[in-house]
C-alpha cells in the first residue's frame, strides 16, 4: 500500500462546474415517491443517489444499501442566490472593490505598501505556523480592510463608491438600489487574481463569484433517510422537506420566466427561493423566520445537524457511547465488602464477560452453553470472528460446533471484575475495580467506606459500571485498581478508604475505658465480625468492649499510636490502652491501618476495615446513638460562663475603642491606627471563640452527650459546630474575610446601628446561639454571612476545580524512574530526586514529613 504523509489540507469554495461533475443526477421533479410508492426518477429520492431500502440496488454503483456510499445529486437554480453563510465575505469584497473598474479601491502604491507589510510579517513569523495567520490578519489585513471600508471613492478611476448597505442575511443595496444576486456575481467575477491575493483570497481554490450559488449539491439519500412509520406511512427527513421546497419554487420560477411573467412576480419568487436556500443551510439564521414543519416544529437543517451540544461534533464525534457498561442509582450496603459492588440482577443478565474456550475447559464451556437461564451464554464468537446470538433454537447446534479458540459471552456473575466509576472523575480513585455481586433490587450497592474516594453519597447519585473484556484488562484492573490498594492517599499518606461516621463512633464507644458488654451483646457483636471465639470475661461475667475490638485485630499485632487523650497501645493483638478515634485509624503521624497493611497485607487490611465498620454499625444500633435538642441544651454553669466570656471580651473591645478615640492606641507595625483597631478587635473575637470552645469541653464532660462524643471520636462535627449551636454563633464574615460593615446606607449594616459603630454587635458578631434563638438583628447578620459563604463556595469550586484539572492533566504522565528521578514520557528529567526525599507518602507509617507539611 502506498502511504503518504498529509502535511496540509486546504478548504476552498465549491465551483458550480465542479458541483455538476461531482453529482450523478440532475434533479427536476420536486417530489419523492409516485402513487405506487416507487421513487420518482429525477425526484429527491432518485435511486441513482443511492438506496436505503435493504435489498434494492443503487443505480449508480450497483451496491446494496449497506455498502453503497451514496452519491450526490444537484439542483440547477434558474436564478442564482446568495449563500447566507458567506454574505459577510461578499460584503467585504464589495466594500473593497470599485464597481466601475473592478479593481481594489487602493492605488498601486498603497497596495504595495500593504503587500510589503504582509510579506515582511511572513518573514518574521515563518517558524510559528499557527500564529502566522492570526498575526497576518491582526497586523496586516485588518488595518487595510478598515481603510478600504472607509474609502469614499476609487483611487484609480475616481468613481465614487456610493452608499453600500448590507442587510442580513442576504440583501445588498447600493444607494438604495437592491443588488440582485446575478449582478453581485458579475461584479465578483471581474475582480483580478492579483487583487484577490491582496485581500487574502486564493483564486484557484475560491473564486469569489462561486460564493453565489447557481448549482446546489443535493446530499445522497443515506444522509437524509426516510423513516417508515408503524402505520406504513413514510416520513421524510427534514433536509428532504427543505429540498422539496427549494425545487418547487425553482420550478415555479422557471415556469414564470418562460411564460414571461411580470418582473414583480419573478422578484417575489426569486426572493422566496433565496429564503429556502438560506434556511436549507441554517434554519437559525438571524433576522429571518425559521422554516417550519407542518406541525409547527422548526426544521433541523444542515447547520443544526452540526452545531452545539447535540450536534454531530459534540454528540457523535467527541462523545461516544460505551458498550459493556451500565449506570444506575447507588445505595448503601454495609454487608458488602470494600472491593465488591452489588449489581442488580437485571443488569447482570445484560452485561457479558468473555469466556475463552480451550481444550481444557471445553466440557465446562459446553455445560455453560447448554444453560437456558441466568448464568447463561448470550453470544458465541467463533474463531472466524462471526458473532452468533444464542437462542433456544440454535443452542444444540452451537454446542455441537463449539471448539477451542471460540469465545463465549456469558452473563455477569459473582466475582467478575468490573470497573466502578463516579463522575466527575477528578483523580485515579474515581474509577476503581470491584468484584460483582449479583443482588435483587435495581440499584448498585456499595460499602460506605469506599464512599470518600468517589465523593459519593446516597441522595440520588448515579454511578457507572464497566466490564473489562479481556484477561489482560481484567487482571490489570484487579491488581492495580482494586480499592484495597488505594486505601492510602498519595497526597499525604492518610487513609482515604477507612471507617467513617458511625463506623468510627461505634468503635470509639465500644473501646472506651470502662465499657462492658453482657454475654449476649458480646456474642451478637462478634458474630457480626464472624469471630466465633469469645474473649475472656471479667469476674462479673461481663466482656470488655476493648477485648471485643481486640478479637478483630490480626493475631500478634503490636502497635503504639495516638488516641483521644492517652496513647493507643496494642500488644500481641490485644488493645491495652487507649480508645479508637479517627486519628488512630488512618490519619496523622502514626496510623493503625498502615501498620496492619504493612505487616499483614492489604487483603487483611481491607477485611479489617470492613469488619470494624460493620461491627461499629451494629454496636451503634445496639446501644443507640442519637442527637437531639438535649445535646445542645446549655447547663446553667455554661450559660453563666458564656455571659462572663462575652462581657469580658466586649469590655476589652470597649477599652480598645476608647484608646483609639484618645489616640492612645499603639498601632501595629505596618498598619494605620484604624486598621490596627480593626485587627485587634478581630483578634479579641477570635480569642473568645477559642476560649468558648475550651469552656464548652470543660463543662460538657458528660459521656451521654452524643454530639460531644462524636466530636471526640473524630467521626462527625467539631467543637466549633457545637459551640455555635449552644453558646454563640460568633463573627459573621463577608466574602473578603473582613467583618460586615455595609448593607444599609451611610456605612452601617442595619438601620438600628449608629454609623461608625465598630463594636462587635454592629459589625456582624452574633452573641446568640441557635439554641437560644437569634436576636432579630443577628438573624440579618447571619443571613449576610450565609449568603456570602454560599456565593464564595460556588465561585471557589468552579475555579479550584478547573485549576486542579489543569494541574493534574499537566502532571499525569510523569513517573518515577528506577533511579528515583522523575521523568516524563520522553524520558526528560523533571526532578533528580523524587519529592526531594524519594519517599512515597503511601508507604509512610510514622515519619513526620517536614518537607511536605499538609497545607
Amino acid at each position, binding site marked *: 500500500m502506498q502511504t503518504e504523509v498529509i502535511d496540509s489540507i486546504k478548504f476552498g469554495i465549491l465551483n458550480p462546474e465542479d458541483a455538476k461533475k461531482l453529482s450523478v443526477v440532475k434533479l427536476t421533479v420536486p417530489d419523492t415517491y409516485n402513487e405506487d410508492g416507487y421513487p420518482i426518477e429525477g425526484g429527491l429520492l432518485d435511486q441513482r443517489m443511492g438506496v436505503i431500502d435493504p435489498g434494492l440496488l443503487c443505480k449508480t454503483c450497483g451496491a446494496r444499501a449497506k455498502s453503497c456510499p451514496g452519491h450526490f445529486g444537484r439542483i440547477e437554480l434558474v436564478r442564482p442566490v446568495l449563500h447566507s453563510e458567506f454574505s459577510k465575505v461578499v460584503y467585504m469584497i464589495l466594500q473593497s472593490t470599485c464597481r466601475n473598474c473592478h479593481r481594489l479601491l487602493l492605488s498601486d502604491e498603497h497596495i504595495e505598501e500593504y503587500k510589503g507589510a504582509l510579506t515582511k510579517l511572513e518573514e518574521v513569523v515563518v517558524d510559528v505556523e499557527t500564529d502566522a495567520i492570526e498575526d497576518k490578519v491582526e497586523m496586516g489585513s485588518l488595518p487595510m480592510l478598515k481603510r478600504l471600508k472607509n474609502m469614499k471613492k476609487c483611487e484609480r478611476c475616481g468613481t465614487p463608491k456610493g452608499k453600500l448597505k448590507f442587510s442580513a442575511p442576504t440583501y445588498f443595496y447600493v444607494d438604495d438600489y437592491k443588488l440582485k444576486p446575478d449582478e453581485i456575481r458579475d461584479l465578483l467575477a471581474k475582480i483580478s487574481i492579483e487583487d484577490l491575493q491582496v485581500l487574502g483570497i486564493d483564486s484557484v481554490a475560491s473564486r469569489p463569484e462561486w460564493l453565489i450559488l447557481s448549482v446546489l449539491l443535493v446530499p445522497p439519500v443515506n444522509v437524509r433517510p426516510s423513516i417508515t412509520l408503524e402505520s406504513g406511512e413514510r416520513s421524510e427527513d427534514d433536509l428532504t422537506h427543505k429540498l422539496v421546497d427549494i425545487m418547487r419554487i425553482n420550478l415555479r420560477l422557471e415556469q414564470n420566466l418562460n411564460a414571461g411573467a411580470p418582473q414583480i412576480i419573478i422578484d417575489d419568487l426569486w426572493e422566496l427561493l433565496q429564503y429556502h436556500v438560506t434556511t436549507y443551510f441554517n434554519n437559525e439564521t438571524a433576522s429571518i423566520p425559521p422554516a417550519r414543519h407542518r406541525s409547527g416544529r422548526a426544521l433541523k437543517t444542515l447547520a443544526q445537524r452540526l452545531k452545539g451540544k447535540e450536534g454531530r461534533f459534540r454528540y457523535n464525534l467527541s462523545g461516544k457511547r460505551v458498550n459493556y457498561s451500565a449506570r444506575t442509582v447507588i445505595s448503601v450496603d454495609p454487608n458488602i465488602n470494600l472491593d465488591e459492588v452489588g449489581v442488580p440482577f437485571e443488569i447482570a443478565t445484560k452485561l457479558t464477560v468473555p469466556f475463552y474456550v480451550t481444550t481444557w475447559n471445553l466440557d465446562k464451556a459446553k455445560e455453560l452453553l447448554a444453560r437456558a437461564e441466568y448464568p447463561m451464554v448470550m453470544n458465541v464468537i467463533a474463531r472466524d470472528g462471526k458473532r452468533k446470538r444464542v437462542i433456544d433454537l440454535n443452542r444444540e447446534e452451537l454446542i455441537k460446533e463449539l471448539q477451542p479458540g471460540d469465545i463465549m459471552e456469558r452473563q455477569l456473575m459473582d466475582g467478575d471484575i468490573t470497573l466502578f466509576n463516579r463522575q466527575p472523575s477528578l483523580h485515579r480513585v474515581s474509577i476503581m475495580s470491584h468484584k460483582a455481586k449479583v443482588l435483587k433490587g435495581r440499584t448498585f450497592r456499595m460499602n460506605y467506606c469506599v464512599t470518600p474516594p468517589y465523593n459519593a453519597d446516597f441522595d440520588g447519585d448515579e454511578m457507572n459500571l464497566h466490564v473489562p473484556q479481556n484477561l489482560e484488562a481484567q487482571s490489570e484492573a484487579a491488581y492495580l485498581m482494586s480499592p484495597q490498594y488505594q486505601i492510602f492517599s498519595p497526597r499525604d499518606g492518610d487513609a482515604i478508604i477507612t471507617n467513617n461516621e458511625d463506623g468510627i463512633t461505634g468503635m470509639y464507644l465500644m473501646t472506651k475505658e470502662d465499657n462492658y458488654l453482657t454475654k449476649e451483646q458480646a456474642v451478637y457483636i462478634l458474630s457480626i465480625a464472624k469471630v466465633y471465639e469469645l474473649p475472656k470475661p471479667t469476674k462479673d461475667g461481663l466482656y470488655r468492649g476493648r477485648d471485643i475490638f481486640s478479637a478483630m485485630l490480626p493475631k500478634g499485632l503490636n502497635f503504639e499510636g495516638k488516641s483521644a487523650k492517652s496513647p493507643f497501645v496494642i500488644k500481641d493483638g490485644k488493645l491495652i490502652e487507649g480508645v479508637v478515634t479517627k486519628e488512630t485509624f488512618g490519619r496523622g503521624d502514626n496510623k493503625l491501618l498502615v501498620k496492619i497493611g504493612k505487616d499483614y497485607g492489604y487483603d487483611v487490611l481491607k477485611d479489617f476495615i470492613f469488619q470494624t465498620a460493620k461491627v461499629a454499625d451494629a454496636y451503634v444500633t445496639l446501644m443507640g446513638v442519637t442527637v437531639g435538642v438535649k445535646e445542645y441544651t446549655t447547663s446553667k454553669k455554661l450559660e453563666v460562663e458564656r455571659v462572663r466570656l462575652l462581657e469580658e471580651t466586649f469590655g476589652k473591645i470597649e477599652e480598645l475603642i476608647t484608646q483609639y478615640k484618645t489616640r492612645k492606641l499603639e498601632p501595629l507595625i505596618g498598619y494605620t491606627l484604624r486598621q490596627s483597631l480593626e485587627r485587634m478587635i478581630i483578634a479579641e473575637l477570635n480569642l473568645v471563640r477559642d476560649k468558648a470552645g475550651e469552656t464548652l469541653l470543660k463543662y460538657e464532660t458528660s459521656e451521654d452527650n452524643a454530639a460531644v462524643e462524636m466530636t471526640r471520636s473524630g467521626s462527625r462535627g467539631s467543637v466549633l459546630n457545637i459551640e455555635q449551636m449552644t453558646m454563640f454563633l460568633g463573627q459573621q464574615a463577608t466574602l473578603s474575610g473582613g467583618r460586615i460593615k455595609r448593607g444599609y446606607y451611610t456605612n452601617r449594616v442595619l438601620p438600628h446601628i449608629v454609623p461608625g459603630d465598630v463594636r462587635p454587635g454592629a459589625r456582624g458578631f452574633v452573641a446568640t446561639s441557635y439554641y437560644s434563638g437569634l436576636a432579630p438583628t443577628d438573624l440579618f447578620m447571619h443571613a449576610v454571612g450565609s449568603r456570602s459563604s454560599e456565593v464564595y463556595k460556588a465561585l471557589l469550586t468552579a475555579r479550584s476545580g478547573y485549576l486542579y484539572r489543569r494541574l493534574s492533566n499537566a502532571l499525569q504522565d510523569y513517573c518515577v524512574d528506577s*533511579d528515583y528521578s522523575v521523568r516524563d514520557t520522553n524520558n*526528560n*528529567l523533571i526532578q*533528580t*530526586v523524587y519529592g*526531594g526525599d524519594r519517599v512515597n507518602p503511601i508507604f509512610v507509617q510514622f515519619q513526620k*514529613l517536614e*518537607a511536605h507539611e499538609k497545607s
Partner: protein
Amino acid sequence: MTSKSDHELVPVHELMSDKEVKELLQTLNLTLDGLPKILESDTQAVKLGAKAGQVIKIYRRDGKRENPYYRTVVEG
C-alpha cells in the same frame, strides 16, 4: 551593595565542567536537551557567566536534605 543572590533563599548555583556534565548525562541516561532549562539571561546564569550548552548545578534544600538540581543553559 547587597546582591539579591546573596539572600538565604537563593540556593547555591554552580557551573559544571564539561567532564562533569558528560558523567552526569551518562548516569542520568540523557542528552543535554533532556534536562530542565535555564535562560542565559537568568540572573544566576549571568552571574556565573554561563553560556548556552553548559549545565548549572543548583544545591536546593528539600526539607532537611540538600539535593542537586540540574539546568541546561539555553539562549534567551
